[in-house]
Structures are given as C-alpha cells and as structure tokens.
C-alpha cells in the first residue's frame, strides 16, 4: 500500500473524517498516527513535495550532494519515507484558502476551501488539523523593502530547494538559533558570510539564566553549542547590535549598524534578517480560533489544549502553527492532535488513547527543556519590533510607514482592526503576515497596554488569493441567490464568454 497522490481536485472525495493541512513534520506525523485507525484522511499541502519548510525538497535532494544541510534536516528522511509508504490521500500544490464551520445539516462539520491547478472546491471534514507551521517574525528595519534584503528562511529555502548559495557579500543580521544554523549551513556549503550582526540583547543572558538548567539538559544544548562555535570562529561576529539600516539605490548595497554609540557600515549584496519564528495565523485566525499572546515568545498563537484543540470545535493545531517549538516537537504535537481527532471521531477508545498519549507526553516534556532559555535569550530588541524612525515601512504591501501608524494610533483607534480600516495596513495580499505583529506592538507601546489586550488583525478568507473565476465556480444555493438578487431563480444561462 502506498500514498495516493491527487493532482487534480476531481480526484478528491467531497468529505473526509480528517483533513490535515500542511505536510511538514507535524502534518506528516499526524497522518502516520491517524491513518492506521481506518478513518478517511486527506493531507493538503501547497508545496510540490512533502516536508514543509523544515524538510523542504527532501525527496528531491540527494543526501550525498546536500549533506551540508546537516543532520537535523536529514532526520526528516525517515519521516518522509514513512509518509510516502502510508496509504493516505495526499494533494500537493493544493492551497487551502478558507476554513469555516459548516452550515448545513445536523452535523455540519467543517468546510475547507482548497485550490489546485487553477480550480477551487469546498471539502467537508469532521475534524481538521492545521499544521501550517511558523513564519519568521517580520524585522522592519529602514530599507527592508529593498531588493536583496531577505529573511534568513529565504536563504535556507534557496539552499534546500535549489542548492543555491549567496555569492558576493552576504551579511546575516538578527538573532536566534535559525540564524546561526543558517550560517553553519552556508559555511558547510562553501559560502562565507561577510559578517553576522548579532542583535541579541546582552541583558537577556541574565533574564534567561534561571532557565539554564533546562537548556543544559536538553537536546539542543550540545548541537547548538557546536554550531555557534563553528560560526563564531569562522565568520566575523559583531555583538550588541542596536540599530540596522539597509541602504542602496534600487537594491541593497550596504548595511549600516550601530553598536554602543558608533555607527559603522558594511558593503552587502545580500542581507539575511532573522529575529525568531512565530506561528502562521492566517487560517486559524480566519477560522475564528481564539488567539492568545505568548509573552515569552512575544507572538500570538491559537489558544489550544495539550492535544492542540482550539476554541473552534473540530479544529486542532499542531507544530509551530500552534506554538513555536521546532521540528521534533512538531512531530509529537502532530501525533497528539491526531490521537485526539481519532477519539473525537469515535475511532479510539479512552484506554487505548491514554496508552498512546503517555509516551508522547513524556517526549513533549523532554523536548520542552531548553526552549524557555532560548526564547528568553533571543527575545528581539524593541527597536527591531517597533521601528523608531517614522519613515520606515511597516506594511510592505500598502507601503504604510511607521509615522502614519503612530498618528492613527494617536487618533484613539480602539484596536488594530480599526487601524487597518484607517490605513489599509494588513489589506494587501499578505493579509498582515508581515505587519500585524509590528502594528500590535506599536499600539501596545504607545498605549501602554499589554499586546494581548490590544489584539491583532484577523486574516479574512481567502487567506491566499484565488481568482474571481475560481470563486464563481463554487456552488451557489437558493438562499445565496435570494441574498444577492432577491429571487431564487438562477442567474442567466451560461454564456460562451463566461470564464
């Protein structure tokens, strides 16, 4: 028995017991956990192959050629191989653009809007596990919209999915394990970054110190130390960076930075920024899941229990999309979410459930060690979360600048959604993925409120764009016709010019 890969929407059933959105470590592990129970499972993923971002392009890359990606990447091979041998329906290059509670019948379940090959369809599911992963926290420095300024994840994706290394002067700036990991991978691939401008706040060491024992006992400590040592001894490492500015005409040419009181400049053909990973909230937010503020990671995440169950019945989150904790934890939370979904489907009795959960919960506790230390140590500096300069762009899509945001906050807008109405921040195609956190932090600072109390933009469906033609191909109902035209008679007979 093997995987059934569905390349057209026509190959999909209208409903499933369980739909898993995302084929990264959390989604793959959830599928492996759920499928043997005999329930109908569909895995939807927007990439051409399984692995998500963590294990991106794993099925295409030869280990001999891509060894520089490191053992953490290649650990994913076992998971991906198991998935490829799993008798589950899998739709690659399928973008999920909506998730809502269903509306018809006594047991409406959940409605998932998916688009593949230019066609759109609505699917039904009794349970949905959102395993969409994380995204990098935006890092709005002056000049961050210049071509050649990218996120560290982009550097990793170029490496993983196309075997590309930066040429010329590449400067890494920011803080957090992923930045140093990328530096290590680049070094192993034969590229020497010009410098790492480290923005870690010196004071954070003290704040994180009480959590040090957890780090020392964790899986990350020795690995992390090795990477850091290699990177610190091979790449010019500048600590205590307090300000950054990307400069250039038409593209980035140099990076200005300040440590202490002094400004200096480095020439740069490519700048890779990073200040941590946060949950990607578009689908969970649009589905109506309640969000809560995680003060240690300074990010919003869907409120969820130990099995990933959110405030929306039937919707669970797993992996970094629920709470950022890395690839190994994603597998564990994926399995826990699947077990909980099976129980909700009546496919797993409580005794068996407890038995399966026990080792996973133990693993969860083990993997948790060390994360609080890292989260605290690498909490980003306020200047990189709240642009001090009024001319810095906050919303890249609509080109709204920090000064405009501050003026609108001063008008007394009750929250980010009202601000969105005033300024259009968050109304572009990225739907706030790169500006929502910045706006919330700015409002919280200016109003002296907790970011959790301020709230955040809600993404609106479609969370990824679909065409008007695809929208028109979805089924209408008599009630919808009445709501739009006043009568239940169908719109005029189809025209040859239609679509």
């Amino acid at each position, binding site marked *: 028995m093997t995987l059934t890969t569905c390349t057209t929407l026509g190959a999909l059933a209208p409903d499933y017991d369980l739909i898993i959105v995302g084929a990264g470590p959390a989604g793959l592990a959830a599928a492996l956990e759920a499928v043997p129970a005999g329930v109908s499972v569909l895995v939807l993923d927007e990439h051409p192959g399984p692995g998500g971002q963590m294990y991106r392009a794993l099925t295409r890359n030869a280990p001999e050629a891509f060894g520089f990606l490191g053992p953490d990447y290649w650990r994913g091979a076992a998971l991906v191989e198991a998935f490829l041998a799993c008798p589950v329906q899998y739709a690659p290059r399928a973008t999920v653009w*909506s998730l809502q509670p269903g509306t018809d019948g006594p047991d409406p379940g959940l409605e998932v809007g998916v688009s593949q090959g230019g066609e759109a369809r609505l699917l039904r599911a009794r349970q949905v596990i959102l395993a969409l992963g994380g995204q990098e926290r935006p890092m709005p420095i002056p000049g961050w919209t210049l071509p050649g300024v990218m996120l560290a994840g982009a550097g990793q994706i170029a490496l993983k999915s196309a075997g590309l290394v930066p040429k010329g002067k590449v400067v890494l700036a920011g803080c957090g394990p992923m930045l140093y990991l990328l530096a290590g991978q680049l070094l192993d691939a034969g590229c020497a970054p010009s410098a790492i401008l480290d923005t870690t706040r010196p004071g954070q060491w003290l704040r994180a110190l009480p959590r040090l024992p957890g780090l020392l006992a964790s899986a990350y400590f020795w690995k992390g130390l090795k990477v850091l040592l290699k990177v610190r001894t091979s790449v010019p490492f500048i600590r205590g960076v307090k300000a950054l500015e990307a400069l250039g005409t038409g593209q980035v040419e140099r990076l200005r930075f300040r440590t202490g009181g002094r400004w200096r400049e480095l020439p740069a053909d490519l700048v890779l920024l990073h200040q941590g990973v946060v949950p990607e909230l578009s689908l969970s937010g649009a589905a109506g899941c309640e969000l809560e503020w995680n003060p240690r990671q300074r990010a919003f995440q869907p409120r969820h229990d130990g099995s990933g169950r959110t405030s929306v019945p039937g919707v669970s989150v797993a992996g970094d999309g629920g709470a950022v904790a890395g690839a190994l934890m994603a597998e564990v939370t994926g399995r826990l979410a699947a077990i909980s979904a099976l129980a909700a489907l009546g496919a797993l009795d409580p005794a068996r459930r407890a038995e399966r959960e026990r080792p996973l919960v133990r693993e969860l506790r083990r993997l948790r060690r060390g994360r609080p230390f890292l989260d605290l140590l690498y909490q980003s500096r306020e200047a990189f979360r709240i642009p001090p300069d009024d001319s810095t762009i906050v919303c890249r899509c609509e080109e709204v600048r920090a000064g405009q945001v501050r003026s609108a906050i001063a*008008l*007394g807008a*009750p929250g980010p959604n009202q601000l969105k109405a005033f300024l259009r921040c968050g*109304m572009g*195609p990225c739907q706030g993925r790169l500006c929502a956190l910045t706006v919330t932090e700015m409002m919280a600072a200016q109003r002296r409120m907790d970011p959790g109390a301020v709230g955040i933009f809600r993404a609106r469906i479609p969370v990824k764009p679909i065409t008007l033609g695809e929208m*028109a191909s979805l089924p209408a109902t008599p009630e919808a016709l009445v*709501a739009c035209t006043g009568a239940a008679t169908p719109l005029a007979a189809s025209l040859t010019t239609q679509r």
Partner: protein
Amino acid sequence: MANLGKREFVVIGAGVVGASIAWGLARAGARPLVLDEGDLAPRASRANHALVWVQGEGHGLADYGLWTLGSARRWPQLAAELKAETGIDVALSQQGGFSFCLSRAELDRKAGILESIDRETGGRTSPFMVLDSNETRTRLPGASAAVAGTIFCPDDGHVNVLRLFHALHAAMAVRGCEYRACHGVEAIEPVTGGFRLTGTWGEVQAEKVVLAAGLGNERLAPMVGLHSPLKRCKGQILVTEKCAPFFPYASLLIIQSSEGGILVGASKDPSSPSPATSQPINAVLAQRALLVFPQLAALNVVRSWAGFRIKTPDEFPVYEQSARAPGAFVATCHSGVCLAANHALVLAPQILAGQLSAELSPYSARRLRVPQDH
C-alpha cells in the same frame, strides 16, 4: 469606573453616521464627546459598498429621493472641507452610475420605478437614461452581451469609504471633539438637565444626546422615548487585487476603489446571525459580476467581507427628536456614506439648533408604528 462629568453634547457611535454628525456639530461650534465601542464591534462602516448612490432612491417615499440627491450634490463640499482640514483625499468620484439588467423585463421594471419617483417628486429628482444593450456597450465596451440594458444616472458616484472614515476621525480631532473608544453605552437615563449615560467605563451626563450607534440604536432608542426598529441585514462583498484604472463609474455590481481594487457587491442576507462570510454568497457575487464583466475572471480575490448593515423595516431613515425627552435625537439610516454630507452639513446644525426641520418629518418613527396598508 470614571465619572466624566457633564457635557453639552454626547454622540453615541463613531461610524460614518456618528462621525459625520459629530464633525458637523463641531464645525457648527459645539464640542461633542463621541463614545465608540471596541476594536471588534460589528461596524457597518467597515462593511459597505462605498456608494454615493441616488438612482432609484425614494421608491415608496419620494422625499427620500430628494434628500439623497441633496446629499450627493453637497458631497463635493464635504470632500473639500475634509481635505482642507485633514489632508486626506477621500477620492470622491461622481461620474455617474449604471444599473445592470439582464433582461428587458428587468430593465422595464427598474425604469418604471425611476419614472414613478420622477413623477412623485414633480421632476425634481435626478435625471436618468435608459440604455439598451448596444447603447450600453458603446459607453462600456467591456460589458458582455448578457447585459440587456442599463440605466445611467449622472448623479451617482462613489467614495473611498475607509479614507472617509479616517478623514472624519481626523477631522473630529482637528475640531476638538473628544473621542473615546471602548466606551459602549449600556444605558441612557433622562435626568434633570439632560441625560445620564452609563457603561462599564463609568458615566457621563449630557444636556443633549445623539444616538448614532447603528445596530445599537434599536436597543438605546426606547430608553429616551424614541423608536428605531431594525431588521437584520448582512452585507457581503469581495475585494480583488489592485488593477490599473478601468471603471470610473458607480454601480451596485462593481466599483473600482481609488486604490485600484475592485469591490464586488453586494448581498443582503436577512437570515444569517453569524458574522462569518458565506461561500455560496461569494460564489453568486462572483458569478453575477462575471456575467456582466467576464474579463474579471482572472483577477485574484484578496479578501471577502461581511458585516451587518442597518435597515429599518421600510428601509428609510429614522431622524427624530424625542418628544418625551427633548434633547435626545436618533439618526438611523442605511446609506450612511451617501448621506454623510447631509448629516454633517444639514442635520448636525439642526440638532445644534435643537429642532429638526419640516423636511425631516417624514422620517419620524411614527410611520413605523402604523400598520402598512400599501
């Protein structure tokens, strides 16, 4: 819990209606306190089609057609004053509007409505032209052959409603209005000298109070001897990515915002209590737009909005001063964007003067208590 003391004017609600009235009051010399709800309160101001629409308004109450036309004609003044005070250009566009009809019967029916409004107003309403399929496609070469005809009215237009919202709030600030969000009013009590307004935030006393709380008016009005019944009406629209300018007109089907995105409207769903967007309605909105403009099929939809709109049982406004508690005014209407000019420039000065003019007497809620016999 704070006691905010006494104010001469308090406006409840800071959507397009409340903000227009508050700014109009300030413009006329008052310093109103404006009380607004929180960030996620249902706001019709964020879920509308941005039309300054005149065509067909007044069917069943001809005076309303004239009230609407008057506001459309005052709109350029409102836009200019807002621009001068705040620097914000609300992108008013009044190049005329089209009603699209897919059959001759539909065209005749709509034309008949406009003709009757024209008769009832003694010819004072907006002019209109009935265009057949060929005439339509001469003016709109992109319209498909499915269009049996259109009705064109030169007074129709649209505005960038989010900029209007921003401009009104900025203008309120410029004029010294005191704006407080997260100050939803739970109760209004007539007391000696005026009214006592209370909420979880505390209380304030007002000599005069204006109810412009949209959906909230239904609950608040009886507290001051007024009546503002509403029927549920959820509106939903689709918004596309930005396009180069290609459609400068107004229509109930599509509008191109000054930012370039196409707003595809609109629905009136009386049944759904949930604020979530409905996929079948999205599908019909898209299908209907594509019937008329098939070339839009390739555009990307970037978001879909749904919100509760304001509708009285006969769909005409309620403007009234309380007889039982003079000094309390209510302003409830569906077309807050179109009527913004009248609200700021005509209604607000009347509220300030303490008396609504005879022009507004048809909008007393007394008409809604009488059983309809036509």
